[in-house]
């Protein structure tokens, strides 16, 4: 039982990182129906920015988190303008291939700049361990979880309470109708990329703290996992991404804790396929009937 709770706590902090990345996927998908494969790479860039600010400029966690979020947001906006905007009216597969091209570019650009080797992420916060009986929670886990919760609340506030958030929701429901209502759809799409990329940048710094190591290929696996999390919860739905991210994080740590970490990915995929077959639009998705 104690082991179970311990795994649950580990799962919560891992899951919150997945959820942060999944939010970016889900928002972009909700608005332009694009699986932004470059999202995992933005998260990788975020981790490297955090590494640089902490290691080279000796900043604390919160300033580096903010710098990483800002720079990643700019990167996201730039990518959207250069690579995705010309393809607004092209087929979705063409847009997908472009996204894959961007992700290759970021990976290999980073390898070219800093080399392919794995680096140790600097320790920014003291590794204080809180014990409650035999259950242990360390400072890193608390920081990751708290940061995630704050960012999610901020996102929820932007989407639900601000004018831009209202425009985002309008565009995601019907882009053409939103344009008729005087909403600048292009700006809204850019803003969505900015928000999602900022969250990915924060996730990059947090995951650097969590695993203590970063490398230019680190975006691939969590990027894929986060995308699966978004699909699991129902892609395009913000609470779905949170739910999916936490579910996958917890399932993964539970399987690693009780069974074998070799099969954890297979079981995650299996759960995904079963859920998709039973409920094809994800757990929180609504099934829309198509008309002829």
């Amino acid at each position, binding site marked *: 039982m104690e082991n179970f709770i311990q795994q649950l706590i580990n799962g919560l902090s891992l899951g919150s990182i997945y959820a942060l990345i999944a939010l970016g996927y889900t928002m972009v998908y909700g608005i332009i129906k694009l*699986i932004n494969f470059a999202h995992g790479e933005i998260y990788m860039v975020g981790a490297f920015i955090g590494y640089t600010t902490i290691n080279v400029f000796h900043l604390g966690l919160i300033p580096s988190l903010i710098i990483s979020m800002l720079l990643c947001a700019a990167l996201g906006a730039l990518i959207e303008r250069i690579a995705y905007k010309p*393809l607004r009216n*092209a087929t979705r597969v063409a847009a997908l291939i472009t996204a894959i*091209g961007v992700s290759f570019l970021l990976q*290999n650009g980073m390898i070219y700049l800093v080399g392919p080797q794995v680096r140790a992420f600097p320790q920014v916060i003291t590794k204080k361990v809180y014990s409650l009986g035999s259950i242990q929670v360390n400072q890193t886990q608390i920081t990751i979880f708290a940061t995630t919760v704050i960012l999610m609340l901020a996102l929820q506030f932007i989407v639900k309470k601000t004018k831009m958030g209202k425009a985002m929701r309008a565009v995601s429901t019907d882009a053409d109708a939103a344009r008729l209502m005087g909403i600048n759809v292009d700006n809204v799409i850019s803003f969505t990329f900015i928000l999602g990329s900022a969250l990915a940048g924060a996730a990059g710094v947090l995951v650097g703290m969590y695993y203590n190591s970063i490398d230019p290929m680190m975006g*691939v696996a969590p990027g*894929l996992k986060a*995308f699966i999390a978004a699909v699991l919860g129902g892609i395009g739905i913000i609470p779905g991404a949170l739910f999916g991210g936490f579910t996958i994080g917890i399932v993964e740590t539970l399987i690693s804790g009780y069974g074998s970490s070799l099969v954890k990915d297979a079981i995650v995929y299996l759960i*995904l*396929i079963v859920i998709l077959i039973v409920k094809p639009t994800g757990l929180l998705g609504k099934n829309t009937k198509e008309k002829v």
Partner: protein
Amino acid sequence: MKQFNKTNLGWLIFIAVAFLLIQFGVSSGLIDAFYEITLMTILINIILATGLNLIIGFSGQFSLGHAGFMAIGAYCTGIMTIKLPTIVGLLAGLLLGIIVASVVALIVGIPTLRLKGDYLAIATLGVAEIIRIAILNMGSLTNGAAGLSGIPYLTTWQLAFIFVVVSLIVIVNYIKSSAGRATVAIREDEIAAESMGINTTKFKTIAFVIGAATAAVAGGLHASYFSVIRPADFTFMKSIDILIIVVFGGLGSVTGSVVAAIVLGIINVFLQPFGQLRMILYSVALIAIMIFKPSGLFGSKEFTISDLLNRKKKATSKTPKQKEEVK
């Protein structure tokens, strides 16, 4: 029975000329050992891309799991030929690969092909990863992450060429059959096709199984040519590589996939000297091509011999009727 018409004869001559050109290149030393690897990669990629094009381009089902079926074929052939290192073993391995991949595709396809668009893509991606992880965990049979090495070298480029031609004939004939037309109808509008009495699940599954079977053949050839296979060769990135060829050539164009496999293979050779910059240039090229030509090289058009013949006719004899058409 008009099997020996002008079009088929034209294709036959075309294939023979291509074969002889490569043969000349190899025997005269123009294509050395390094270029022969590129040639094999291109041939294997042609099989993979046309198979995936049948699934994505012709039946409109977005599958990201092609590498999984390639892995099945590679491991079946690898294990078989290690036990029986003759050409019989190779053929038996390829056949086994086709059978296993088809069965897996059938089991996976029937439930998942009900999913639409991106959901299908992510489900097939999951299937491919499950296949790969299963191979990783099969103990001494597949040798885990280290993979199989010492697979006998049984594939020559001639054999691969024959398999390319055979798989192209199978796929093109399927597309032109009534089942193939039903498949294309599903791509155009699934609901309309269904209301016209087409069993959509059936034709989607058939296309999926044929695509998986050709991927298994390509995997088998890969295994017996390169002699070493590891689960890491068949990740999600491999599926993406093939997808890039298909989209670059044009969704729904078999000749487009063939040309794209050749062009991308050659681009890769030219980028070799650039070392680390290679992948950067490759990805920039990919983004640029997609921005400027999002429908791919050929769109959904095909390069056909009969078009070529007709065009010649048009050029030589301008009938009044054709002039009217121009207006």
